[in-house]
């Protein structure tokens, strides 16, 4: 059942993105930026965690979860260190994603030739 909800919720978020692309004529970069901001806003009101509980990877794999993780890491440190903690914890939870994107992006660029 986990897999069904991951499929439906993850697919649903992508459909919203497709509507923004086709109907509102946004570029992919605009869609991704809006989604990250949307994730941060949803986490401000603790709503995104409910979605993750419900859909698992259906909520953690779309880019909205990047905004959610940024916010989450920031709030975790803010509880301990106050306003400075917002900066300290900002990348606390997203470091795995960013570090691996930099590493693999660089390595692939080293070992592969551009196609097309």
């Amino acid at each position, binding site marked *: 059942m*986990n897999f069904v909800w991951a499929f439906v919720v993850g697919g649903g978020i992508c459909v919203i993105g497709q509507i923004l692309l086709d109907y509102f004529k946004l570029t992919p970069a605009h869609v991704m930026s809006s989604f990250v901001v949307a994730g941060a*806003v949803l986490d401000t009101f603790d709503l995104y965690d409910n979605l993750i509980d419900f859909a698992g990877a259906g909520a*953690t794999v779309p880019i909205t979860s990047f905004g959610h993780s940024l916010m989450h890491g920031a709030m975790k440190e803010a509880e301990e260190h106050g306003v400075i903690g917002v900066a300290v914890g900002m990348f606390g939870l997203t470091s795995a994603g960013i570090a691996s994107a930099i590493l693999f992006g660089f390595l692939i660029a080293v070992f592969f030739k551009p196609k097309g």
Partner: protein
Amino acid sequence: MAKQKLNEQNFEKATKEYQPKPPYLMNMLKAFIVGGIICVLGELLSEMYIHWFDFKEENAGNPTVATLIFFSALATGLGVYDRLGQFAGAGSAVPVTGFANSVTSAALEHKSEGFVLGVATNLFKLAGSVIVFGVVSAYLLGILRYVCTQLF
């Protein structure tokens, strides 16, 4: 003069008729299926990390995202992901794999300019906007939320 002004004002409207209409429903269906499948793969990976590598449900997201990024970067290097992107639209752009694809493809595209000025400088050319908007919004909202929780 008046005619030109009219044309400028009506330009969007006038050209709209001649632009091909995107097949809205078909595109949405493709995005739904491909996006859904990527998320199911993510779910599969996170279950794997929970059962075999002693991760908990809350932190299994990290290795899952890292693994998906690795596969997406590899698929971009092989030229597969861009073909998927043409088919799926937002279905392949919205998941975190699309983020990795934009990083890797920007790096590959500028490889001819060298590793420092080409690859490293352009790595976040496309994905940078995501990080900038994410951090700025999370920073401002984080401070706002912290102040609110302290006050009330």
